[in-house]
């Protein structure tokens, strides 16, 4: 990564050349001839143009966008061809190309090819290889469908939707209807429009912040990956899986890109996007290194375009701003294009639907929502979630989905989401672990979106964008005027596809990330340390999800943080907007789920699951000191809140599904337990509470019988441990970490342990130690029954015998009071007598005495011990010491001991 970073710094100057070279190579590979030549020429031009645009930044010359458009199509075609050709090297380039922006793609490809080397980690190469291999076959299949889809997709973007916009007030409905292509198209487009709206509103700063935040997370991700880099194999697996997932999504992306290109070519293009999508997905899920690549892409692209000659290191901020400005310009353009094309392609769209497999529509739908979210909210977490969901859905639910999609337009999206939710509903422990990952994913998505937007700017779209912008401004403030939103969404559908493409392509650009990191470092004098800081923002971004106010985010003084905070605010607004639509709740839940679950799902899918966990933990460890604990608690709170919401939404069938998923997860987790433990040990060294807790949760879940706990009771039930230790004696050690079941004794053993303590001839210190450990085990396992009472009573008596009043008062008496209060049987009377005596001892506490006396039941007052205690009290208050000592002589139970201490206390 570092190498890349250094390279990227210099890249700004070098990029043009590299890009050009790359293009040439691509052409040689034999991409579509028509496009290639023209594109090649245009590419160079576009490059230049792009830069110019960036310089001018906000001028927003649309002519430039046209260039971009051409370029985009070209790269995509190339990549497609490459993918079909199954050229191993080409894949990397294809990824780069997949990005709508030619310039970027060129960079990306360049970086990719060099990346493995620059990274120096063989693992990356392996990753790439893995990608190429599996993705290619998988791609080929989808390609057919996709081609078709490509055409239909353009129609999707179709205006009929736009026409419908005015009509359908329900934003949610459009969102949900996967079955309806038009609606689906509308949806993505709306998302796109959202983006545009935001842009129009002049949230340039926001956008920049977005990127910035994204960037930071990327860097963190990259670092994390570096830490965990050794596990290359895992990554590959992940990639494969992801790629599979992405295929459907890719298709959807393809249409968007295709819209730009001609229909006939669109097929090729679609293939390409599909491939790229697969890569992107793999990257996102896969090791952190990939994620960085995503982000770097946008950044790199922006930077070169913005400041062609300038060194990257110079003005980080300025870059971002430039990027933002450029983005704005670009965004409007793509929208226009989409609209125009969409109109044209409507008929084809219908056909497409028919031709397409059900799976494809689903994929599209899924992607679209993602695109929307990302576009609307720009929230990284949301995007990630959705993306994850879509992936999952594509894989898991594809079979079912097609049916549903065709038949039930509305139901499908929800179902998918729910499914994802179910997955995500995983345990809290996972959540904590998974947080880093989702963020990474999200970020890449954002980056991809930005890139896509930039790259995709058909002239025709401009007009559309402009309109959308005007509308959007109003909407922004309102958060979600649904009608306007719908319009925007329809446009966004096209964009979403574009975004998906970018996604795919983005993963290939690891080098740019490095550059960005370096830049960051340069700005921030601290090179390495800067990374953790950046990470923290990523975590914060998670927290943003949570209802917690942005203030927390603001706590950090780093500019990045401030940006993040802004970002978060954005997110909140977006969420709010969504809520009214009805999809908001789902979106939230999805988010939540995604945050926690991505890892979980991966695990379940394959053994590689462990790997992600590790990575996250490591990442956590790095950033752990940034107030993880607080964030953790916040998360929990948020989670609970979200859960409640989710629960409310969830129908019983959905719940069932979730439970099933959960139980499955648990099974898998158990298999992985050993490794997890290993990780845990590692983490323990670092003192990362987060990781520890997470591991603890994992462990606890492993031991849960059904693992089918409702999401609601995540709280401590989930943390409850079931012990396996069979040793009767155990030294007491105050827990500083989550309990390890292998050192916790189950109830039967504890019973024996209590007996041995009671019969032991050893001294009080030993017994006390043993009893404390028994109590600890009981507490950890949340055992509250007669055994618990017995243990506490035993300990109380022992401590009274020895006169260890602090132990008695603070530990045993208070606990016993609670336990008795819960109705657990024990020697209640005996201990209320002790309590009375204790209160008497503190003679100046009249109100306590009064209250404890008034609380005595009639039954208690007849008890011998209590009566004795009351008599003692009377004797003390009246000063009848003769009586007192008589009572002392005939005291029942251990009242004697207490009275003895009473004597000493009051110097009687």
């Amino acid at each position, binding site marked *: 990564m570092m190498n890349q970073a250094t390279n990227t710094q210099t890249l700004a100057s070098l990029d043009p050349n590299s890009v050009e070279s790359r293009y040439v190579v691509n052409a040689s590979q034999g991409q579509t001839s028509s496009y290639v030549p023209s594109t090649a020429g245009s590419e160079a031009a576009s490059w230049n143009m792009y830069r110019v645009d960036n310089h001018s930044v906000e001028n927003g010359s649309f002519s430039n966008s046209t260039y971009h458009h051409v370029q985009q199509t070209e790269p995509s075609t190339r990549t497609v061809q490459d993918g079909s050709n199954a050229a191993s090297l080409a894949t990397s380039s294809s990824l780069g190309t997949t990005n709508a922006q030619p310039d970027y793609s060129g960079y990306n490809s360049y970086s990719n090819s060099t990346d493995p080397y620059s990274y120096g980690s063989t693992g990356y190469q392996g990753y790439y290889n893995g990608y190429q291999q599996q993705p290619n076959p998988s791609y080929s299949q989808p390609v057919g469908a996709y081609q078709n889809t490509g055409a239909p997709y353009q129609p999707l973007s179709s205006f009929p939707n736009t026409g419908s916009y005015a009509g359908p007030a329900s934003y949610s409905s459009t969102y949900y209807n996967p079955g309806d292509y038009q609606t689906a198209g509308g949806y993505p487009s709306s998302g796109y429009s959202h983006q545009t709206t935001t842009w129009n509103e002049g949230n340039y700063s926001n956008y920049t912040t977005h990127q910035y935040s994204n960037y930071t997370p990327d860097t963190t991700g990259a670092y994390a990956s570096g830490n965990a880099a050794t596990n290359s194999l895992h990554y590959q697996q992940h990639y494969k899986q992801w790629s599979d997932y992405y295929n459907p999504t890719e298709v959807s992306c393809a249409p968007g890109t295709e819209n730009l290109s001609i229909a006939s070519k669109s097929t090729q293009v679609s293939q390409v996007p599909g491939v790229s999508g697969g890569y992107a997905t793999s990257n996102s899920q896969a090791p952190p290194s990939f994620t960085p690549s995503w982000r770097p892409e946008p950044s790199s692209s922006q930077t070169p375009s913005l400041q062609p000659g300038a060194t990257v290191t110079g003005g980080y901020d300025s870059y971002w701003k430039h990027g933002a400005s450029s983005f704005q310009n670009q965004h409007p353009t793509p929208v226009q294009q989409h609209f125009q094309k969409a109109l044209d392609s409507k008929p084809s769209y219908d056909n497409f639907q028919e031709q397409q497999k059900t799976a494809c529509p689903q994929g599209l739908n899924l992607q679209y929502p993602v695109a929307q979210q990302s576009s609307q909210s720009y929230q990284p977490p949301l995007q990630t979630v959705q993306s994850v969901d879509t992936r999952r859905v594509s894989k898991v639910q594809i079979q079912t989905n097609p049916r549903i999609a065709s038949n039930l337009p509305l139901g499908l999206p929800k179902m998918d989401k729910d499914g994802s939710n179910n997955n995500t509903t995983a345990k809290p422990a996972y959540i904590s672990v998974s947080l880093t990952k989702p963020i990474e994913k999200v970020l890449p998505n954002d980056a991809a979106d930005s890139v896509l937007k930039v790259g995709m700017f058909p002239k025709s779209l401009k007009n559309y964008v402009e309109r959308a912008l005007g509308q959007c401004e109003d909407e922004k403030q309102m958060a979600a005027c649904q009608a306007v939103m719908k319009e925007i969404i329809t446009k966004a559908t096209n964009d979403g596809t574009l975004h998906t493409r970018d996604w795919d392509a983005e993963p290939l650009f690891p080098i740019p990330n490095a550059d960005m990191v370096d830049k960051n470092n340069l700005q921030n004098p601290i090179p390495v340390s800067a990374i953790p800081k950046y990470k923290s923002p990523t975590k914060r971004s998670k927290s943003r999800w949570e209802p917690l106010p942005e203030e927390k985010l603001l706590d950090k003084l780093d500019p990045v943080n401030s940006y993040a905070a802004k970002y978060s605010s954005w997110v909140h607004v977006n969420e709010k907007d969504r809520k009214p639509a009805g999809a908001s709740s789902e979106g939230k839940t999805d988010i939540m789920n995604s945050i926690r679950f991505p890892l979980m799902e991966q695990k379940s899918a394959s053994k590689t699951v462990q790997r992600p966990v590790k990575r996250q933990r490591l990442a956590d460890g790095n950033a752990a000191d940034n107030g993880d604990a607080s964030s953790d608690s916040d998360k929990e709170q948020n989670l609970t809140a979200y859960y409640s919401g989710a629960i409310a939404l969830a129908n019983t069938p959905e719940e069932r599904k979730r439970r099933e998923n959960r139980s499955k997860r648990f099974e898998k987790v158990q298999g992985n337990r050993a490794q997890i433990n290993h990780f845990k040990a590692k983490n323990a060294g670092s003192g990362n509470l987060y990781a520890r807790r997470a591991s603890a949760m994992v462990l606890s879940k492993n031991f849960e019988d059904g693992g089918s706990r409702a999401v609601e009771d995540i709280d401590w039930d989930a943390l409850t441990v079931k012990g396996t230790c069979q040793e009767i004696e155990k030294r007491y050690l105050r827990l500083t970490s989550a309990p390890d079941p292998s050192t916790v004794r189950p109830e039967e053993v504890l019973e024996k342990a209590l007996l041995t303590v009671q019969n032991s001839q050893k001294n009080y210190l030993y017994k006390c130690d043993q009893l404390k450990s028994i109590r600890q085990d009981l507490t950890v396992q949340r055992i509250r029954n007669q055994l618990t009472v017995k243990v506490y009573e035993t300990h109380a008596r022992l401590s009274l015998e020895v006169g260890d009043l602090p132990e008695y008062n603070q530990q045993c008496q208070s606990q016993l009071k609670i336990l008795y209060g819960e109705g657990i049987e024990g020697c209640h009377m005996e201990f209320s007598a002790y309590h009375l005596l204790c209160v008497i001892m503190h003679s100046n506490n009249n109100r306590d005495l009064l209250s404890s006396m008034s609380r005595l039941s009639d039954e208690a007052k007849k008890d011998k011990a209590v009566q004795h205690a009351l008599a003692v009290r009377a004797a003390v208050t009246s000063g*009848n010491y003769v009586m007192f000592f008589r009572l002392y002589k005939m005291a029942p139970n251990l009242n004697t001991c207490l009275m003895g201490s009473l004597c000493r206390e009051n110097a009687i």
Partner: protein
Amino acid sequence: MAYPSMGEAHRRITDYLNNFSDAVSDQDVASLAQLFSFSSNSPSLLSLADALNFFQDANRLIKQSDKFSQFGEILAPLFRLLQSYRLGNLVDAYHAFEKFANAFIQEFRNWESSWALQALYVIAYEIRVLAERADRELASNGKSPEKLKGAGSFLMKVFGVLAGKGPKRVGALYVTCQLFKIYFKLGTVHLCRSVIRSIETARIFDFEEFPRRDKVTYMYYTGRLEVFNENFPAADHKLSYALTHCNPLREANIRMILKYLIPVKLSLGILPNAWLLEKYNLLEYSNVVQALKRGDLRLLRHALQEHEDRFLRSGVYLVLEKLELQVYQRLVKKIYIIQKQKDPSKAHQLKLEVIVKALKWLEMDMDLDEVECIMTILIYKNLVKGYFAHKSKVVVLSKQDPFPKLNGKPVNS
């Protein structure tokens, strides 16, 4: 119940809204307070609640006119409160009330003058009463009752609003008294301390400026606190103040004061007249008083046992129990008087056996040692003047004033 027609409901709601805005604009606090005091179950509010429940869309009416919508923050929750209160959903009513009260306070803060104090009093009172009832509802549902606590913190906020310089500060004591009521009910009496401190030490409060009823209430509660602390002179002072300033027609209030004042006075050696106990139905003390008069230890113990629950709950049990020493003193004094009648020369020598015999006659089974101990304590507490001859088991009383009267001073402890 016959529900009003739609038009009728509409009319009632608009009437209410008009009344509200009129009251605010005219600064007519009496009618404003009336609009808030829903727990009075006044027919107009009840019918309004019915109308609200029937009409359902009262918020639209609020928003309709600027005159109302500027108070939308206040009125909307108030309507919700009335609705759920009418439906018997007290917890929801409480939530709405807290929202309403907060909005009102916000508005109240902005009013320069203190004209709306009366309405604020109503709110402070209603929120406490409503919280208590909501807690009862919560408790009956097996949930943890916490509304009263919430009301306490809300009133603390109100206190903060009032406790500044300015005309509003005279309202502080009322809120303080409501707070006392909450704290005493919750058993978190220690929380009273901060309020008391700000009242008693703050220069801005001249105690005599406060309304009399608040002063009485305040003195009553602080007097009770002093009883808890067994600071009898202070308790006597405060409770006596409350008694003398209390409206003599409010017998229930007088009774409440006497409930604490009598034990305090008893422990200071001042006995009440029998007619006082009768008049205020405080007969549980009559036996105690009798026991003190007669030196009848048995009677005292019986009286304590008989009313143990009541005394424990009111918190005077320990105070009354401490009267035992005075009863002993009385008993010894009686023995001394009888001895004096028989043989004045040797009257000051009290044999312990005689005391034991007397106690036995009272069915108090105490032996010599115990009696010796008691006598020692009596001497130590300065209830008896004299010395003790251990060998001969004789108490030698002082020839001058062997049984000093307390005369309003507490027993040495």
